[in-house]
């Protein structure tokens, strides 16, 4: 099923129905006493440090038209500081930095390495690595009875060829003795590309400098630089959660996203089946760069259900259905079984399944025709399914006995995930988190 107006209308009706039903509860006088003791939303400042190490490899790099090394390594660190401003308000500052090296992006210019240019060989030029940095400031205010929560956030992120500014806000309403929760949020991201094109397509490039063209020596790519480099994303999200019994609770979430502007990746090559191939060394020169529509609307509907089995086991489940107007539909399902082995240690085995259909504009290497309006060989937009196996361990000390300066260690998380696509891509990620509470 693809995303069309009829289906969109049906899916839009879900949050509306939930909202109408829930507002019925809101008419009931809140049973929470307004005179009860007012607990601070956040007792004391918290600091959380997160880090991850990610690696992947595959043979379908989009930079080299769907055929080439996808080897990539990324290291990310994040610091989240939450500060209670008073009984009701919390300010959170979230900063992160991510550094990566990538074989495929190094081949934006494959001719600046020490070895002959080759799509399966990383080059060593400036595009082989990049640093991404981001910062988010968010503010949340809770009403005296803690049944209303307002939030706002401002985010900024930047890397060499991309800049993003985000604004967002949300409102959460709890009622039915805090058994029911409704939330709504909206975000706007205003992004700007600094378009980097494959080296052979740049007007300033003298290809003779890199070697002799062989194959089709009359190299004549289809290329016009993008005249607009902005990308705006607008999202709206709705959430509904409900305690269903003393051991069971669930949630439904709906997200709408509309993106406009430059949605193509300027450095991703495409090779046409009806154009003769041109090479320098072992590297095939681009016939064109990816061309995608400048508008995309996405809809995701997800649900969670968590069940407390006993003092040792908890069952956590998640399902999501996704559709967009590029022709992609997807399903995600995951299950996690936290196992409390002592009062301080919990194990987290998990499994996640994901599948998607291909975008209307996707075709593999040399399968597109030069007469098409839109084309991409990015395998992230192809049809595939993926499995992810995870295992984590958490140490929790509610008494925060271990200290660093004035901060007591509350919890330590360590998790490993192995991700495998049926199209060949394999990835693994190790994540760690340390949470401290100020004395």
């Amino acid at each position, binding site marked *: *099923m693809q995303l069309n107006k009829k*289906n969109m209308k*049906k*899916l839009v009706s*879900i949050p509306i*129905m939930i909202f109408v*039903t829930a507002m*019925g509860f809101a008419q009931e006088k809140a049973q929470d006493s307004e005179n009860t003791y007012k607990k601070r939303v956040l007792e004391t400042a918290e600091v*959380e440090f*997160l880090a991850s190490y990610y690696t992947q490899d595959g043979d379908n790099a989009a930079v080299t038209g769907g055929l080439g090394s996808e080897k990539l390594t*990324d290291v990310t660190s*994040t610091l*989240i500081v939450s500060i209670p401003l008073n009984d009701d308000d919390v300010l959170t500052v979230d900063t992160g930095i991510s550094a*990566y090296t*990538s074989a495929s992006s190094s081949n934006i210019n494959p001719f600046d390495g020490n070895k002959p240019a080759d799509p399966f060989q990383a080059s060593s030029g400036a595009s082989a690595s990049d640093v*991404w940095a981001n910062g988010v400031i968010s503010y949340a205010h809770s009403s005296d009875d803690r049944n209303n929560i307002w939030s706002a956030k401002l985010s900024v*992120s930047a*890397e060499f060829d991309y800049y*993003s500014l*985000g604004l967002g806000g949300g409102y959460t309403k709890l009622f*039915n*003795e805090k058994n*029911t929760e409704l939330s709504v949020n909206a*975000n706007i*991201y205003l*992004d700007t590309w600094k378009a980097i094109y494959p080296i052979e397509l740049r007007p300033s490039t003298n290809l003779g400098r890199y070697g002799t063209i062989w194959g089709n020596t009359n190299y004549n790519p289809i290329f016009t630089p993008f005249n607009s480099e902005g990308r705006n994303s607008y*999202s709206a999200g709705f959430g*509904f959660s*409900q305690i*269903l*019994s*003393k051991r069971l*609770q*669930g949630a439904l*979430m*709906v*997200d709408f*996203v509309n993106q406009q502007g430059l949605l193509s*990746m300027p450095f991703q090559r495409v090779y046409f089946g009806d154009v003769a191939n041109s090479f320098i060394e072992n590297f095939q020169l681009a016939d064109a760069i990816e061309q995608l529509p400048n508008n995309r609307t996405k809809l*995701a*509907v997800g*649900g*969670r259900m968590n069940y*407390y089995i006993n003092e040792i086991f*908890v069952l956590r489940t*998640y399902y*999501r*259905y996704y559709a967009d107007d*590029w022709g*992609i539909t*997807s399903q*995600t399902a995951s299950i996690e079984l936290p196992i409390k082995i002592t009062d301080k240690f919990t194990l987290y085995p998990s499994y996640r399944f*994901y599948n998607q259909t291909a*975008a209307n504009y996707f075709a593999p290497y040399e399968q597109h025709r030069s007469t098409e309006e839109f084309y991409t060989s990015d395998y*992230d937009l192809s049809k595939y399914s*993926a499995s992810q196996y995870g295992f984590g361990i958490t140490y929790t000390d509610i008494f925060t006995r271990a200290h660093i300066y004035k901060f007591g260690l509350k919890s330590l*998380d360590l998790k490993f995930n192995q991700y495998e696509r049926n199209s060949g891509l394999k990835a693994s*990620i190790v*994540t760690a*988190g340390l949470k401290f509470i100020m004395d």
Partner: protein
Amino acid sequence: MIKKMILCGLALSFLSSCVAVKEYEKVKINDPDMALSEKNVHRLEATFQSYREAASGANGGKTGGGCGCN
């Protein structure tokens, strides 16, 4: 699929009308592993998924902004 989702939503809505677990009965519900949101440490994993997969959203994670081009 759509019908199932609507039914699921309605079922959850109606169920909410007959259940009101009191605060003092929420010991199991308040267990940290019962939280309906993911831990912060999970978001680094969710970030790579949002880069490698076409689908995103409805999980409390990123739904827009950022390049995702590496």
